[in-house]
């Protein structure tokens, strides 16, 4: 489904990603882990089409070249990013925002727009999924939300948008255990053979609730290792030190626990 090959990204001439390869099949859940500043968010935004990046390599979703498109076209192609730092938009009603987003995507795909009443039903369902209070929809997009509420709002949006590929950037940071479980339940319920999920995280904690098929380690702008979920446990115990400081010529600094996909 998602094919990323030799993706490089630099900002103002400073390279951040250098030759990143990643392939995510339909229905799979992948996790990307890596130390602070290793380029995880940059990867998400390079896929989503944020301005200001110089990009090389290729990235396709269902065979469609993502990198050639505007951000909204990538969204219409089925890409959803759960932002690490969701943006506040004062005065814009959350519900209105979501419906406009959904209908924009539907319109772009030549689908019929969804009416206010039908939308409300869709939104209600999605809200139950993330156990969100009703008044949430009537507040401004992320404005004055707590950190946890913003993250829930991202999941809510994902549940409403029903993307082909959801890339969740540190959606678990700053959440207490209860919120974490709610979010995990939300993600799990959206798992389907047609939908793939990439979870960017620091902690293996979330992966206890959302079992990834593959875990990748992103260090220094490229995927340096991949394995099954036990890799996450390894990282939890040993940190990234063995990946960060290892001599490029020697073998990777951890015993092989799984096979790269």
């Amino acid at each position: 489904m998602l094919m990323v090959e030799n993706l490089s990204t630099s900002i103002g001439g400073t390279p951040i990603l250098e030759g990143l390869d990643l392939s995510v099949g339909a229905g799979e859940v992948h996790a990307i882990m890596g130390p602070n500043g290793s380029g995880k968010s940059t990867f998400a935004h390079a896929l989503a089409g944020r301005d200001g990046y110089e990009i090389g390599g290729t990235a396709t979703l269902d065979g469609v070249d993502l990198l050639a498109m505007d951000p909204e076209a990538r969204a219409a192609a089925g890409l959803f990013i759960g932002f690490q730092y969701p943006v506040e938009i004062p005065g814009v009603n959350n519900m209105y925002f979501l419906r406009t987003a959904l209908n924009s995507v539907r319109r772009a795909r030549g689908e019929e727009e969804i009416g206010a009443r039908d939308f409300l039903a869709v939104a209600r369902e999605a809200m139950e999924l993330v156990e969100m209070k009703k008044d949430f929809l009537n507040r401004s997009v992320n404005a004055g939300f707590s950190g946890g509420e913003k993250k829930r709002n991202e999941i809510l949006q994902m549940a409403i948008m029903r993307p082909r590929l959801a890339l969740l950037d540190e959606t678990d940071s700053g959440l207490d255990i209860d919120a974490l479980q709610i979010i995990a339940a939300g993600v799990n319920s959206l798992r389907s053979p047609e939908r793939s999920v990439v979870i960017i995280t620091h902690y293996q904690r979330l992966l206890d609730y959302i079992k990834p098929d593959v875990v990748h380690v992103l260090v220094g702008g490229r995927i340096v290792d991949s394995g099954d979920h036990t890799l996450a446990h390894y990282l939890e115990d040993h940190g990234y030190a063995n990946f960060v400081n290892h001599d490029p010529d020697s073998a990777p600094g951890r015993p092989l626990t799984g096979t790269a996909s």
Partner: protein
Amino acid sequence: MSIQLTSNWLGTQRTGSDHRSIAPLSSKRGHAMTRTSQEINDLAEASYEYGFSTDLDTDIAPPGLTEDTVRLISAKKDEPDWLLQWRLKAFEAWQGMTEPDWAKLEIAPIDYQALSYWAAPKQKPVLDSMDDVDPEIRDMFDKLGIPLHEQKMLSNVAVDAIVDSVSVTTTFKATLAEAGVIFCSFSEAVQDHPELVREHLGSVVPVRDNYFAALNSAVFSDGSFCYIPSGVRCPMELSTYFRINSQNTGQFERTLIIAEDDAHVSYLEGCTAPQRDENQLHAAVVELVAKDRAEIKYSTVQNWYPGDENGVGGIYNFVTKRGRAHTDAKISWTQVETGSAITWKYPSVILQGDRSIGEFYSVALSSKRQQADTGSKMIHIGADTTSSIISKGISTGRGQNTYRGLVKVMRSAENARNYTQCDSLLLSSDCGAHTIPYIEVKNPTAKVEHEASTSTVGEDQLYYCRQRGMTEEDAMSMIVNGFCREVFDELPMEFAVEAQRLLSVSLEGSVG
């Protein structure tokens, strides 16, 4: 969505029964935003939609302003002598006054002698029913989306339509009369209710208040008059629709609204003008009197022709609006100013009675070469008086937007409270935003707060919306509407829809 592009604020397409006059505002929060998503998306033309002119057979006075002009206007309207004398006094005062110093405005000098001070569509002199309205005028209003025909009116809004200087029709008179509400043209009021007019005319905006108020007092031609008796809650929204049609005319209308003790009224005002190359002058005076415990809500959507990209043409909109609030009374001004080459107006409240309340909510947009200089004055005289000012200025193109306001707390105003918030949004590198508040406090128990901010639409906000699938234009429009939300929430539904639509049209081309 049921609202079409051609509809506008006077409510051809009202759905359901969500009508409210001065109902609590909180009940509709959010609706305004959700109702208009499609309209905004659908907007295609950035051009001024109301720029057509209509060939009306018009009775026009020759240009020039002398005492004789004043006498002519008064005679045309068959006015009582006291009113003529009042006009002449105003004219004398005006002659002794100097034009205001345009601190922030770039303005071509106005030749007051080149203007015509009387232009009236010729039609049957007396209107017995709506069917008597000149069909051409009716067509014109239909084109603007304002049906004057009562049968055609779906909405619960009484309309007074003013073309050039003269009120051409007032709808729903009978219904209103049942409730004891007088809603008619100013000229009719002078004939039918002279004692009311005489008592209140000039009582809030004195003749010499400022240059344009004096001019208006001398030459005003018509306007709307509205009287709500004690204890009456006006059964429908009252609305005046202003249209400048003739060339080289000034429009000088006068509005007087009197709400007796415990009376309530919500009043709407809309304005358009044809697209013309020369500047036209609009100098109106609006006076509101809210007696004890009365409430007046006055909403304006002003969309006079703004002129073109090079600043050619457009209306000079110099308006004096002021209300006097007696004990426990409330006056609330809401305005959305997207039109006019120059807007110069400061809707004000004299908070005279104890516990009276004044509010001002404003969205002013300046694009192209538009200049908006607007704000509010809140004069606290009574004890425990409260005022709030929420001003949203949007500048784009080469527009200049100025908030100018005065909050004055007199020594007598124990425990007065004011909160002012002025936010500016700058959408281009050639535009400007200016915030010039005056705050004068003479009572230590007063609490006055002023906050202002200036910002631009964040790249991150646009990107976030686009990641969710919206186009850049839609995202921009949505964010700007969000910026104005607190003000739009104050507008009656039709106006809110119209206001958002106008804003989106004016913003076209602001992206990128």
